[in-house]
């Protein structure tokens, strides 16, 4: 009994203290404009968790999809509006880095992170948070109707039985699409990869503009196989979609979501504090709620509907190579496939 009263009392005192603290902090509070592409549902949770740990900093989110966010950041090159980028694809951040837009900073504890989640420069220009990994969404009901067997590997996708039943994102408009293509080239070698894509192209029903759409199309039975990544699959499954999430046996391309400071920010100190916090164990546990793979090794817990060995499926991804060859790869891809439904003959 007494214990409960004590707890209540303590909680009240704590609350009063917290109020006093935040009231006094209101004077010194720094506001950070943070650009992000994290899922809409996660925005509030991340903000609250961070602000609870750093009451002197207030996060103002500016959120959009990766493509739009990158375009926005590049467009604002000469007049940056953001202080920090938190939760944008590492490939995009490399683009910003090559424009000299990022402020290199080694956050406290960066050495604890898995090195493939950290920029190769010293000090690093960006540090990773978590990863999303390429995967196939496979609609079992539609497959059964059509008498199809599930593919096991990327190469399986070129089998004639899947003709017209595969949807993948267009690498020219989707980051996921590009990570697939760049992974194939890195895994198979340039020539084999293009040969594979030539075969795959024969089976493709449509190239979508976004990376999650193929999976959602598979979930809705609009297609049988959606080349996508793991979350939309997990979410659709949760919503009751008859799909399996398949990680091809050759390995999967992946993309890191990462954090970086925009060069020239007026709130450098606060920005650094945010980056420091973003790689803490606490932060990574927060990422783990949605993401199966996080940058901080050894803490990830399995996510519902996803296997727990995803990191083993991830290939060695050379972000820098991908960024510097992006334009050439996309031009080649566009030349080969972008006129998919042109009238034939």
């Amino acid at each position, binding site marked *: 009994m007494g214990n409960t009263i004590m707890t209540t009392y303590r909680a009240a005192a704590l609350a009063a203290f917290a109020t006093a603290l935040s009231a006094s902090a209101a004077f010194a509070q720094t506001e950070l404009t943070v650009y992000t592409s994290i899922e809409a549902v996660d925005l509030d949770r991340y903000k609250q968790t961070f602000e609870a740990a750093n009451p002197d900093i207030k996060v103002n989110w500016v959120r959009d999809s990766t493509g739009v966010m990158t375009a926005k950041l590049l467009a604002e090159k000469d007049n940056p509006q953001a202080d920090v980028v938190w939760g944008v694809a590492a490939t995009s951040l490399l*683009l910003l880095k090559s424009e000299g837009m990022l402020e290199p900073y080694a956050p406290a504890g960066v050495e604890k992170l898995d090195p493939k989640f950290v920029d190769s*420069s010293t000090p690093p220009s960006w540090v990773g948070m978590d990863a999303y990994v390429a995967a196939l969404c496979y609609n079992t009901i539609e497959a059964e109707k059509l008498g199809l067997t599930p593919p096991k590997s990327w190469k399986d996708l070129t089998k004639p039985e899947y003709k017209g039943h595969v949807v993948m994102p267009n690498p020219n408009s989707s980051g996921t699409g590009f990570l697939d293509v760049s992974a194939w080239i890195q895994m198979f070698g340039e020539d084999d990869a293009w040969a594979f894509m030539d075969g795959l192209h024969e089976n493709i029903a449509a190239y979508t503009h976004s990376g*999650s759409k193929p999976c959602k199309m598979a979930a809705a039975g609009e297609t049988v196989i959606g080349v996508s990544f793991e979350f*939309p699959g997990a979410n659709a499954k949760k919503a009751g*979609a008859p799909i399996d999430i398949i990680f091809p046996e050759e390995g999967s391309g992946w993309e890191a979501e990462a954090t970086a400071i925009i060069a020239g920010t007026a709130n450098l100190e606060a920005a650094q504090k945010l980056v420091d916090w973003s790689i803490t164990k606490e932060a990574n546990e927060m990422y783990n709620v949605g993401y199966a793979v996080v940058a901080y090794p050894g803490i990830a817990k399995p996510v519902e509907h996803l296997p727990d060995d995803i990191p083993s499926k991830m290939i060695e991804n050379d972000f820098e190579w991908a960024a*510097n060859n992006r334009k050439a790869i996309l031009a080649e891809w566009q030349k080969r496939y972008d006129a998919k439904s*042109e009238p034939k003959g």
Partner: protein
Amino acid sequence: MTAATLEIPRGRALRTRVSGDDLVKRGLMVVISLYLLVALAAPLYVLLSKSVSTYEFDLTAFELQRSDESATTWSEPTTVATLNEEVGGVITPDQLNTGSDGRLSLTALYPDFSFRSPVMYRIRGTSDDAAYLVGSELHRGTEWLELDSNSFRRVVIRPSASLGLDNFVAYFSTPALAQSIANSVLMGVISTVLVISIAFGLAYALNRSCMPFKGFFRLVTTIPILVPSLLPGIALVYLFGNQGLLKGLMMGHSIYGPIGIVIGSVFFTLPHALLIISTALSVADQRHYEAAQSLRSSPWRTFWTVTVPGARYGIISAAFVVFTLVITDFGLPKVIGGQYNVLAVDIYKQVIGQQNFEMGAVVAVLLLVPAVAAFFVDSAIRKRQVALLSARSVPYQPKPDRGFDTACFVYCSAVALFILMMIGVCQFAATVKFWPYDLTPSLNNFRFDLMDGGGWGAYYNSIVMALLTAVFGTIIVFVGAYMVEKTDGFAAGRTLFQFLAMLPMAVPGMVLGLSYIFFFNDPANPFNAIYGTMAILVVSTVTHFYTVSHLTALTALNQMDREFEPVAASLKQPFHRLFFRVTVPVSLPAILDISIYLFVNAMTTVSAVVFLYSTQTQLASVAVLNMDDAGDIAPAAAMGMMIFYTNVAARLLHGLVSRLLLKRSQAWRQR
């Protein structure tokens, strides 16, 4: 009168002394002209200049040095251009043209290059601007940088900006992109032919038959205006997609692609075509038909010799409007176009997908060409049409004809069914749990906050945006039209203003949106502050829909006695008293029409705002796009239906308010 006085005295023409009232008027005109200059002319200019800003690798801007294997003796500094000549031009001139994010590796210059070799390299720019990367690390300037072979492998040079038509050349030499032009035109032509035929049939039935339920058909055929053009795309997915209710009708063809674009285009352009053709048909002269009848002309012959020629200007005008709408629309092909590339989607892909703003500007300029051409042909035709309209005499009165009326009724019912089906399927898909596997009713799809696109906030933003657009747009448009129509003098300014006011009709929304990015997102621009705010959305939407509103206001003002202003001036009343006491109350119906037009369009527009919204100002129409983009089709349909219901409510409210206001302030209309 002697001959001597018939010689005009030398000297300058007299000018009226400017009164305070005139100063106010001119000030207002300048303000509104400036608005159009800033919101339209300047951004378009920046867009054009962006489309000719090119990027190419300048090989003379970099110098290289290479050491021997001991890394002690160095070769003479040589420019990359010279080196390239020495090795026989491994870097071809083709490779030099690139985009803003172009990168060029230099290892090819050394045929014997090996990243394991102990040979060292040095690189520097010949000017401070020359930029190159080591990996993704940016370097600039004339300082030598020494690198081992393995690092030199990672060196890429960056292009420098210049002016030229290279972007256009690049666009046309990419087959997939050049194909989009042909695709866009093909879609435009097919859709136009179909829409005009269907709309003519409808207009004919509505004006020339005695079928029942005309009012109902008129109402139903305006529905497409109330929804974003993405919604028919979504409806088509549900109707004819792989899980579509009517998939069998497709006979194995895919709805994703040209078929979907054409059907969707027919849906969303139908009301526009119907309105124009219906107007043309409704002014027919009864006497022509009586003449034809007395000449014993067959009905079929009468149709081709009297009806069609009478409506031909309307038909041509409608055809151009539809063609422009189809080729400049972006939402529909984005949703249903599959891999069928069209110009409007190319812009989006170039800008949002590849961050290639210059190429986006090129596509925008290309899109501007047919739209501007259509605009000029159309305005030439409209001029001729006026003469036809004013020559009307006895209005045509249809006579009941059972067979014909039944045929008309069946035809209109079919079209109405098509429209209602498109809306209905969206409504259905929006309110089931998980299409197509779990059809139990559910409102899950309305939980927008759990999805991309901005959630319910986007919906409320849209309402705020639409209201602001309606209010400020109506004020700007009406005052602007008043200045053009009812002021004297200042002729040059008025002509310029009139031109600017007509221009938005020829500027596709995407082009406008893109030009706004270039113009307003420039830190040197004093209006930079509105970038990313609600203000820029309102400004772009008002500007995008300026022309039709302006014409509506002009028509209303035109019908007003030209002598009101002289009378008020002779009574020594400032113009604003006349404006508020007479002009505005008398024009109230037109003003309400303009505001509902702006409201409805602000709710549904996607094309301009898709480049301009920010996280705080997401919009419902863009949310439909983004949710569909992310594959959340059912929530996209749900949001589309929210827009539809909002517009229906706004229309009802508009009708109610109009009626009330008219009752109170327009008592003078009844005798």
